[in-house]
């Protein structure tokens, strides 16, 4: 029996499952190929959709001829933008708290012109996907090709075409920040170190692409959508709103989702169009984006150029940071989370781990005729971390200080919290010093340096790089709700005892593979007092779960889990009330352990939950007068004390550069992370590993390459390079634990930290390896070509 005494009731429960690496209850099913992904769903009379997509990045639609397509046998419908616009309202991707953010209204199929290559223009439904594609080839669109805005640096120049004339210019949003007195800091500084960092646009490449099956029942105007989106309630609201339906007659169901990482948290025009098709046809319509469509249809992310400065004194003190961030998005701001959030995160989080007071920033978010851009795992954090940690390393080198010692000198002290960052971000409790100390042990820093140095003498160029980071998790309403978005930051859980003593747990959080169901089951089992095999977890259905936010911003454990903890505690109270009534005991002397009501102090078993169920449901006549058993409990939770649960950590990369070929070999990677209470260590470590690898992808391989006509040059799996097994190191994971006081569980989020710090660690290791050559790289991905160019070999 594991007994703890942390002062947190949920962690101190007897037979607690918190902190145990329990295997996921839904994993065996997936390992046998018995998942239900959206393309596995087959309904009566279902038709398959595809789209005619614009071959041009910017072109006016002069006319659309669909006659030949409509006539093809097996085609059920060919729908033009005008026809679809009659049944839905357009949307605008702005939020009020991003002041000044402007975006043009977007329809599911554009009425006037295509504004990115790959934009869906005409919708087709047919008996098979193959026939729909045959029909797409027969649609004839007469285009007037327009000049293309394909470069962020010149997007707001006077002589650049304005994509949406009614907006006046291509500036989506500008954010400025000014804290402290940076000019005084510059005057006082001994060195002002500068650098420019470029981040290649990349995309999520979820192995399961986006998709949905939409079914509209016209007599009740009931819309049911099976959707592999992360936020069913958000989608429910949006579909009801845009299609003028009653929200309670819109049901969104998410079954198994083949990875999402933020790609499937947004609202996509082609998915809205699919729903529209189902309303027009009154038959189920399935749309699965294929891989070619995904590359140009999914959101891209991380297309930034950041000029950064750091001011330091000779004694190693950081006094200021400044950035000028330029990010080129698509032609619209994505709905409903906006395409300004990534830049906002960059501005808010530069310099995060370090104690300094002076900060200035300007971020310009500009429109381009390229794929839309929006939140993808770790939203803006890989950028702010690489800029910060790149400047920190460069400053350390300028001062002749060891990069670790320089960081340690400037960290917020572990015992100095709560405090605010230079930008006013409220930090509850972080552990930069502890994490750094742990990673130095893990890598055996002195030995590693010796090895690196010895090999350098032999012409083998290895480098060690660090990246300290902060990652936003458990977002409150401050993230989206305050701006007017109907995105729920709270979450709810309903728990119900059945007639056999089992417990149904229904949660508004959703699962995309990270193990949310396991985490929920561990918390539920612990809070009620049953073993996890007595639980049935219900998620992903707006009709059968409490109103919730789904999963994003690493919130499922910290927010979803907390609601479950509270609901479980309340259910236990209610069960014990029933037991007390049956046993004629004081409920306060009883507890539930392993599915049995016991005397708290002795552990003596008194009555099983199955027996309580039997009596309450079938023999209520035997219960005392005036007593009504209530065996369902619902609780909701939202963080209130802190707008975000900031987490922190540090990563280290050890790599070797082949200076003749430019190839980089990743030898080792380490991460020490603090996500507060760890509910399932195995799952957290695997989130870290998967996140690190996505970060490594952006650092070394992944980039959406465009020509000056806005054509994506590598929109397929052969030319867009995702990390595969043979090029990756093993990743060592360690932890510090700083629980949040904002919840009883104390759990912060862990899903994105790996991605946040990995690119910065690799960049710093690369530049460490290249330091004998007076070569420095700050443009990701770090391709062999860039390495050879920096070395002057080509």
């Amino acid at each position: 029996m594991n007994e703890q005494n942390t002062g947190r009731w949920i962690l101190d429960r007897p037979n607690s499952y918190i902190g145990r690496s329990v295997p996921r209850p839904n994993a065996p099913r997936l390992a046998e190929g018995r998942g239900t992904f959206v393309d596995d769903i087959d309904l009566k009379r279902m038709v398959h959709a595809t789209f005619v997509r614009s071959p041009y990045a910017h072109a006016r639609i002069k006319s659309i001829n669909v006659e030949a397509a409509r006539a093809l046998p097996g085609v059920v419908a060919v729908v033009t933008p005008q026809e679809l616009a009659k049944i839905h309202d357009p949307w605008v991707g702005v939020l009020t708290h991003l002041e000044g953010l402007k975006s043009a209204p977007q329809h599911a199929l554009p009425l006037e012109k295509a504004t990115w290559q790959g934009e869906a223009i005409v919708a087709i439904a047919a008996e098979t996907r193959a026939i729909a594609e045959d029909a797409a080839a027969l649609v004839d669109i007469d285009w007037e090709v327009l000049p293309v805005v394909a470069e962020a640096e010149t997007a707001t120049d006077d002589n650049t075409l304005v994509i949406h004339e009614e907006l006046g210019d291509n500036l989506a949003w500008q954010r400025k920040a000014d804290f402290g007195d940076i000019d005084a800091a510059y005057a006082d500084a001994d060195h002002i170190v500068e650098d420019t960092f470029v981040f290649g646009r990349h995309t999520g490449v979820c192995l399961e692409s986006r998709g949905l099956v939409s079914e509209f029942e016209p007599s009740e105007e009931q819309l049911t959508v099976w959707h592999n989106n992360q936020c069913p309630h958000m989608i429910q609201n949006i579909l009801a709103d845009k299609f003028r339906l009653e929200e309670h007659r819109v049901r969104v169901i998410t079954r198994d989702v083949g990875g999402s990482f933020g790609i499937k948290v947004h609202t996509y025009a082609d998915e809205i169009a699919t729903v529209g098709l189902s309303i027009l046809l009154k038959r189920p319509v399935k749309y699965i984006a294929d891989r070619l469509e995904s590359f140009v249809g999914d959101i891209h992310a991380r297309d930034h150029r950041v000029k950064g400065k750091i001011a330091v004194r000779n004694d190693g003190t950081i006094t200021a940071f400044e950035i000028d961030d330029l990010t080129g998005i698509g032609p619209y701001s994505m709905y409903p989370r906006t395409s300004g959030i990534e830049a906002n995160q960059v501005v808010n989080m530069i310099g995060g781990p370090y104690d300094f007071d002076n900060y200035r920033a300007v971020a310009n978010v500009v429109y381009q005729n390229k794929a839309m851009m929006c939140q993808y795992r770790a939203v803006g954090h890989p950028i702010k971390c690489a800029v910060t940690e790149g400047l920190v390393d460069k400053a350390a080198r300028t001062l002749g200080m060891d990069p670790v010692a320089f960081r340690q000198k400037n960290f917020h002290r572990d015992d100095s919290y709560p405090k605010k960052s230079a930008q006013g971000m409220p930090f509850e409790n972080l552990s930069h010093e502890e994490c750094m100390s742990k990673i130095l042990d893990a890598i055996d820093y002195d030995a590693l340096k010796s090895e690196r140095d010895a090999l350098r003498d032999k012409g083998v160029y290895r480098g060690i790089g660090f990246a300290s980071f902060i990652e936003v998790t458990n977002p409150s309403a401050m993230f989206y709700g305050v701006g007017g978005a109907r995105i729920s930051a709270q979450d709810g859980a309903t728990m119900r005892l059945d007639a056999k003593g089992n417990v149904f747990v229904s949660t508004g959080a959703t699962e995309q593979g990270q193990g949310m169901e396991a985490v929920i089951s561990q918390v539920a089992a612990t809070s009620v007092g049953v073993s996890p095999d007595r639980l049935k977890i219900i998620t992903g259905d707006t009709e059968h779960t409490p109103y919730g936010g789904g999963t994003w911003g690493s919130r499922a454990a910290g927010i979803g889990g907390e609601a479950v903890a509270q609901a479980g505690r309340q259910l236990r109270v209610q069960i014990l009330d029933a037991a007390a009534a049956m046993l004629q005991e004081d409920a306060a002397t009883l507890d539930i352990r392993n599915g049995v009501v016991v005397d708290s102090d002795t552990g003596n078993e008194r009555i099983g939950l199955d027996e309580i169920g039997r009596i309450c449901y079938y023999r209520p006549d035997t219960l005392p007068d005036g007593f009504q058993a209530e065996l369902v409990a619902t609780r909701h939770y939202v963080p209130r004390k802190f707008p975000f649960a900031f987490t922190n950590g540090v990563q280290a990369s050890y790599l070797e550069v082949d200076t003749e070929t430019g190839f980089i070999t990743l030898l080792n990677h380490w991460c020490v992370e603090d996500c507060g209470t760890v509910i399932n260590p195995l799952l957290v470590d695997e989130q870290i590993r998967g996140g690190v690898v996505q970060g490594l992808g952006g650092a070394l391989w992944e980039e959406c390459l465009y020509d000056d006509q806005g054509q994506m040059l590598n929109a397929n799996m052969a030319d867009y390079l995702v990390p595969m097994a043979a090029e990756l190191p093993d990743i060592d994971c360690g932890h510090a634990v700083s629980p949040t006081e904002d919840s009883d569980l104390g759990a912060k989020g862990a899903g994105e930290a790996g991605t946040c710090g990995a690119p910065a660690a690799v960049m710093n290791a690369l530049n460490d390896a290249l330091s004998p050559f007076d070569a420095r790289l700050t443009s990701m991905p770090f391709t062999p070509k860039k390495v050879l160019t920096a070395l002057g070999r080509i």
Partner: protein
Amino acid sequence: MKPAPFAYVRAGSLDDAFALLAEHGDDARILAGGQSLMATLNMRLSAPEVLVDINRIDGLAGIEETGDALRIGAMTRHVDVEESPAVATHAPLIAAAMDHIAHPAIRNRGTFGGSIAFADPAAELPACAVALGATMHIAGKSGTRDVAAADFFEGLYETAIRPGEILTAVSVPKITAGWKSGFLELARRHGDYAIIGLCAHVDLDGGTFGDANLVFFNAGDRPVSAPETAALLKGQTWSDDLADRLAASLKDELDPPDDLNADGPMRKHLAGVLVKRTLGPMAGE
């Protein structure tokens, strides 16, 4: 994407295949391993009316020793070439190349002859064939003929195979005493098409180079031999100085293309690195 619609016929014999190809002309494509063809059709980059499946034709698969050569049937799956003791012994260059070709599931279906006939300039096997002086055996309605590897690759995806003909086998001369092979490619990820690669087949008797074949892939629109650079090896023993001279010669001799991963100058530079890293170890350095 799904392919555009096509009809599908299985050829039961070579004559059957010739008749079908004659009947349908440009509208037909041969389906062997399908690992390149189906990817192309799945992207609708090509839309043939008819696929002629030659997988059931007897006698096109298998590896046999024919005196001084290995005769590799065109329908021999890559995996069977990869696992062949005869290939390991008599054509070590090919053995070295095999596990760079895509991935196991692709190699289980893709064919040796298919790769040769498809003639992707970034593929390994065409360059191996040229480096080893292989002979391609081609069959058609009017009979069979042989084409030397050096004459077989005519341009980008273009070979000496004429419409209506089928590659039936490739004969690779067995490696002889004193000769050594070296294979090296640089790819962003294991199994990707190489940025550039080298098939080296050299006469190295007691540390002194004799005749040499240096054939690069992804250095042009077909396998690219570098005879002028190879000639510099004759009579020489390995040295850093020789390596430098070879690299400099390659910069003149090669004219590689630009693509997403590398441009011409980068490929030229890498060619020099490949030569150094292949020949140096061969010479025991």
